[in-house]
């Protein structure tokens, strides 16, 4: 299906060009018009959405705040000048007026469909309403305009760059021709949940989760317009306009749109469209959704090769018309300036802003926009700008306010809130689903943590939100990173200046157990159902002073936060701890969190975790095969309900360790890729001396054969020793002892073996048939057998050896006690 479309498109473009080539006379004009004019109608007729008609250039920050006089006039006007790229032609040294500029066009030949380009150049606003690109050909006579369009399209068609090769790896699935494998339904869901609709229009039909409306929205619902204005809620009540998409299906292919979505900054270095950290599959899904909803997408743009003469003409025009002032292309470095901004006379009637003449472009602006622009030119010279001004201006340019509130400005608008959800629809209030307010953020985050927020590889901090913080190139956000701390009056005092006391981590663990664990995970572990910001590494992200103040009284720094104070009226909820000393208690929390990687988890979390992964034998023994430090990589651990456990080393075929109390935690063995050893949780560990239960010079005489589970669930270990096969049944006898019954069957009659009943650095006879080693481990044999044994001294060990003659079948019983 897709292939067929691609081919048709190619044929269509080719035939059009062939026809144009033949008609290089005055006769070709009517044909071009015939081709151009009807297409916008065709392009829109399939579109089920009501087209958003912005008659004027759409600059989000101006629409939302400037046009309602909610930001200073100088900011409003400067914002328009920069976003409309006025200064790309009319130079200015005011940094605020630095032009946004347009996309890089170096690869436009295989990114954008020629037919769309043709229509767009003929009237940008008609094809993409709200575009900030001016109409550059508006003043050309019709015939010349048509010719110019063909030449520009031909030139742009030669601007081809291969799409970047995506790196695949174990973490990065990249399917062959992934852009053909997008899923419209998944794309719809992504578009409406990860942040696209923070700027762009949601589908009218998309149904969101029903969530509790914010208190303020509930209030607004009940007021009339007049009351809303009186209460200063006009901004909160307003519908925020969307950045229009234009005719995406006519413009992009599945591939070119998916590639743009994956890395918008490659084509649009100004990052007004940021990266939403998409995987290739997600990019394909969203591209499929965006293109399939208003037509039949093509999978690839098929470029055609125009005549050289037309290309050359297009190249000249590209400079002549000042396209190259805003757009980077390959092979053109020329720049054609116009009169510097300072020298422009804004009083004249004819300008780019209104009734253009001569070689001027035409911007679609309304009177309010023009007034704002003129204010910058006519108003006072720029004064010293505060850090706060710098921050808010950059946030206006990047439309950070589309998501974030700061100093009363911006935030997710009233009508967009439903698209901001929590993963799994957990009710955490607005704080748990909306992007955070940026008030005081410069006081809170250390510079490297602030910078990390924007970096593409940083993992999300608020995993419970479906919205994603976009990533930005450093160059785009460095102004924010440098001005935010000063704007917010950062206090960089170090730990020693802020905190007090020492050796407080243990008390800190107790503190966090009281309250923090109810809402926060700790290094990936949490109480059941708890979602929130993980407190791991918090001490390297935030300034100590902010931490102190925030814990002391969260509401002082964060309005209406759900985070409660643990020090109501300045008094601790835990008077029993550290004498109720508030400063010491906050210092203790910091001390604990700072060392969290090496500290035990908070007790409540530890308990909850154990409930899932600690093996607690109740009615039957539990077996676990795992790696253990003492019992090796072939360990078989057996835990008994009576609280006595052992581990057998199936490689060396020997008992390795026994202990009492708690058995083992199985999570590492069951679910961890890096297979950490499982070590005894209990106490009273006793190690068994290296070597076997039978004296032998050759370890190959021992062969492990597995085990059998008896009806009561107790395993009997099976192995061979020389000519004997041994069934080794170990169970818990009375009073916490292990009783080991060996059934030895020899394949030859009258086999002589020597039982090594016990071994240790020093063995002491502690009963008529018992020896105890230096750990306190006693081995008891039946008296008749004990009497035949003797104590032998080997290198640095004493061994209790008993010679046995195995006639067919022999049973030996050993009892371990410690």
């Amino acid at each position: 299906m897709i292939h067929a479309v691609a081919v048709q498109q190619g044929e269509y473009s080719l035939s059009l060009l062939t026809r144009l080539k033949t008609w290089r006379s005055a006769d070709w004009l009517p044909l071009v018009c015939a081709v151009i004019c009807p297409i916008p109608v065709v392009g829109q007729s399939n579109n089920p959405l009501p087209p958003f008609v912005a008659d004027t250039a759409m600059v989000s920050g101006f629409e939302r705040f400037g046009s309602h006089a909610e930001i200073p006039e100088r900011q409003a006007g400067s914002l328009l000048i920069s976003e409309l790229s006025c200064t790309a032609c009319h130079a200015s040294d005011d940094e605020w007026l630095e032009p946004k500029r347009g996309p890089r066009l170096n690869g436009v030949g295989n990114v954008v469909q020629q037919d769309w380009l043709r229509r767009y150049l003929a009237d940008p606003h008609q094809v993409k309403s709200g575009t900030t690109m001016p109409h550059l050909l508006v003043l050309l006579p019709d015939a010349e305009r048509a010719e110019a369009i063909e030449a520009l399209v031909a030139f742009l068609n030669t601007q081809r760059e291969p799409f970047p090769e995506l790196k695949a790896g174990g973490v990065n699935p990249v399917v062959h021709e992934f852009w053909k494998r997008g899923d419209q339904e998944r794309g719809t869901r992504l578009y409406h949940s990860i942040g696209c609709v923070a700027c762009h229009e949601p589908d009218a039909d998309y149904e969101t989760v029903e969530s509790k409306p914010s208190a303020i929205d509930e209030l607004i619902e009940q007021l009339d317009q007049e009351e809303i204005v009186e209460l200063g809620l006009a901004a909160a009540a307003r519908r925020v306009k969307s950045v229009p998409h234009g005719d995406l299906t006519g413009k992009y292919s599945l591939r070119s749109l998916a590639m743009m979505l994956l890395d918008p900054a490659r084509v649009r270095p100004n990052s007004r469209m940021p990266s939403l950290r998409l995987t290739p599959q997600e990019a394909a899904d969203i591209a499929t959704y965006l293109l399939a909803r208003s037509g039949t997408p093509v999978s690839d743009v098929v470029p055609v090769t125009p005549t050289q003469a037309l290309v050359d003409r297009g190249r000249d025009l590209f400079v002549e018309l000042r396209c190259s002032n805003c757009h980077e292309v390959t092979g053109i470095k020329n720049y054609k300036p116009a009169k510097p901004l300072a020298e422009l006379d804004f009083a004249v009637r004819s300008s780019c802003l209104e009734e253009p003449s001569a070689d001027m472009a035409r911007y679609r602006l309304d009177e309010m926009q023009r007034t704002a622009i003129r204010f910058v030119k006519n108003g006072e010279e720029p004064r010293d700008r505060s850090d706060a001004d710098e921050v808010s201006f950059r946030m206006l340019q990047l439309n950070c306010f589309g998501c974030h509130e700061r100093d009363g400005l911006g935030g997710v608008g009233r009508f967009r809130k439903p698209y901001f959800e929590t993963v799994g629809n957990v009710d955490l209030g607005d704080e748990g689903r909306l992007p955070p307010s940026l008030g005081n953020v410069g006081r809170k985050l250390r510079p490297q943590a602030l910078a990390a927020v924007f970096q593409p590889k940083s993992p999300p901090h608020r995993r419970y939100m479906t919205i994603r913080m976009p990533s930005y190139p450093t160059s785009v956000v460095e102004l924010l990173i440098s001005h935010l701390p000063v704007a917010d009056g950062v206090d960089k005092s170090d730990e020693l200046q802020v905190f007090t006391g020492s050796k407080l981590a243990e008390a800190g663990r107790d503190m966090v157990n009281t309250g923090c664990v109810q809402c926060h995970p700790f290094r990936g572990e949490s109480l059941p159902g708890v979602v929130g910001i993980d407190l791991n590494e918090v001490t390297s992200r935030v300034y100590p002073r902010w931490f102190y103040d925030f814990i002391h009284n969260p509401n002082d720094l964060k309005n209406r936060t759900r985070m409660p104070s643990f020090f109501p009226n300045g008094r601790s909820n835990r008077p029993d701890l550290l004498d109720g000393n508030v400063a010491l208690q906050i210092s203790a929390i910091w001390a604990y969190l700072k060392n969290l990687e090496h500290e035990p988890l908070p007790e409540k979390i530890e308990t909850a975790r154990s409930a899932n992964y600690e093996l607690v034998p109740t009615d039957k023994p539990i077996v676990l095969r795992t790696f253990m430090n003492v019992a090796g990589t072939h360990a078989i651990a057996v835990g008994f309900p009576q609280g006595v456990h052992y581990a057998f080393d199936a490689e060396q075929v020997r008992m390795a360790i026994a202990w009492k109390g708690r058995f083992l935690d199985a999570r590492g063995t069951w679910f961890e890729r890096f297979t950490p050893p499982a070590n005894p949780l209990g106490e009273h560990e006793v190690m068994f001396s290296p070597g076997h239960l039978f004296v032998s010079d050759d370890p190959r005489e021992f062969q492990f054969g597995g085990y059998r589970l008896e009806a009561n669930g107790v395993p009997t270990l099976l192995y061979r020793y020389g000519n004997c096969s041994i069934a080794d049944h170990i169970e818990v006898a009375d009073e916490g002892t292990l009783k080991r019954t060996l059934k030895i069957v020899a394949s030859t009659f009258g086999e002589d073996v020597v039982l090594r009943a016990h071994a240790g650095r020093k063995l002491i006879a502690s009963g008529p048939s018992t020896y105890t080693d230096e750990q306190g481990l006693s081995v008891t044999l039946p008296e008749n057998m004990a009497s035949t044994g003797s104590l032998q001294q080997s290198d640095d060990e004493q061994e209790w050896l008993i010679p046995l003659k195995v006639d067919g079948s022999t049973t030996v019983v050993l009892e371990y006690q410690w």
Partner: protein
Amino acid sequence: MVTRLLITLLLPMLVCSNGRGAEENDYYRLISISTASAATDSRSKNWKPAPDGLALEISGMDFLDDGRLAVAIRKGEVWILDGVYDDPPSDVTYKRFASALHEPLGLLQYDGDLLTVQRSELTRLRDLDRDDVADEYLTIAKGWGVTGHYHEYAYGPKLDGDGKLWITLNIGLGLKGAELKRTLADAALGYRQGRWRGWGMIVTPEGKLVPVCAGMRSPSGLGANADGDMFYTDQQGNWVATNSLHHMRPGVFFHHAEALASMNEPGSTIHEVEKVPDGLPLPQAMAEFKQLRPPAVWFPYKKMGQSATDIMLDESAGKFGPFTGQLFVGEFTQAGINRVFLEKVDGEYQGACFPFRLGLASAVLRMAQGADGSMFVGLTNRGWSSLGDASYGLQRLVWTGKTPFEIKEMKARPDGFELEFTLPVDPQSAGDVNSYRMTSYTYLYHSTYGSDEIETATPAITSAEVSKDRYRVRLHIDGLRELFLHELNATGVQSTSGEPLLHPEAYYTLNRIPKTKN
């Protein structure tokens, strides 16, 4: 008060809106028997399964004689599932048969019992009283090195045509600390690995390990072809240029040099390797390293997946569609399944691979064919990553009865290739050389991770002859190169009803160019 409302799309649904995934579903339909999403990211250090239900991270699968499905799961258990053929599978029952196994990565019904390879041994699970709970966990064979490194996975067993049991052993990666104490004391060439790491072995009925071939990195899939010969898949990484399929046979060496650590062990079938070339194109590396053998099939990276896993022979005699006798190979990262055609040239296997199906719910680790021909697919992506919305589970792939238009076979000829299609072709498009594109390339044999495609060339397709029955096309090609992979794209070929190929790509590993016409 949170309610999930159904997402209703009132927008016109377009046929092409779901791309190839949707088209594949027209021919091979997916049924989810049980899938679940873990509570954490697949690579999380604190990985946790979904809060309720069984962590069905399937690592081994076989059907019992009574038709029930036995599965091993990674946490170390074996479960017996009944009702898996129901559609919808609303009444599947689960019974725990065995537990306390150490990461079992295979499962085989054998002589009334179940066999599985754990990290440290091949184990026979016996249910003496027939209550569906194993009573004996008997050690059949052990003795390979287990240093404690996570990457030392052990796989199998599977049966070859002679009834022999095969297992494969992963190589360890960058061993440290206590792990080094468990490496071979006098390893050849100074490599530090546990015994038989990176080897494929046969286990005799007496439990003796018989080393057969070596040089494996991550041989997670084993399987016999229709002739009963045994194959394994390997995964891209150090020494392994891209994913591959190999015929296991005595004395041959595949990729990973560190498997030579066991060269001087009693029973080794590899001898007298003094130096391993590092950084040569494969054909030159083979000239210098005489035991080195190319894979029967390379799977070019990304184009044909990123991590090859299990091997399943289609023995359905047509119940699973037109590919009887071919091999299906699991794909972990891209959550898919590929297809392989093999032929013998001068006594050695080589052949082509083709895309088959993507869009499974998670990483494909295991596959087994049911009695009705449908394919049961075991999924788990823990520790790595994969496409798909789930973390683990069991899905079933059922042929809808509609034959996809595919390149069924691609055979080497002295002067080109012969393609066989699943449906008759339109002679005009199939007879046009412009309907085809071909490139050829090989890989570097080196110790670094993976290899780019190197020495790429474009062999010229000089003619395309359509057979009388219209099922076959003979491509005459100038510039075939031995030991190069030949990538074919037959985008222009249409069936007699005008359909394009569901998958126009085929990748032939041309180790040998046949000398005579067969």
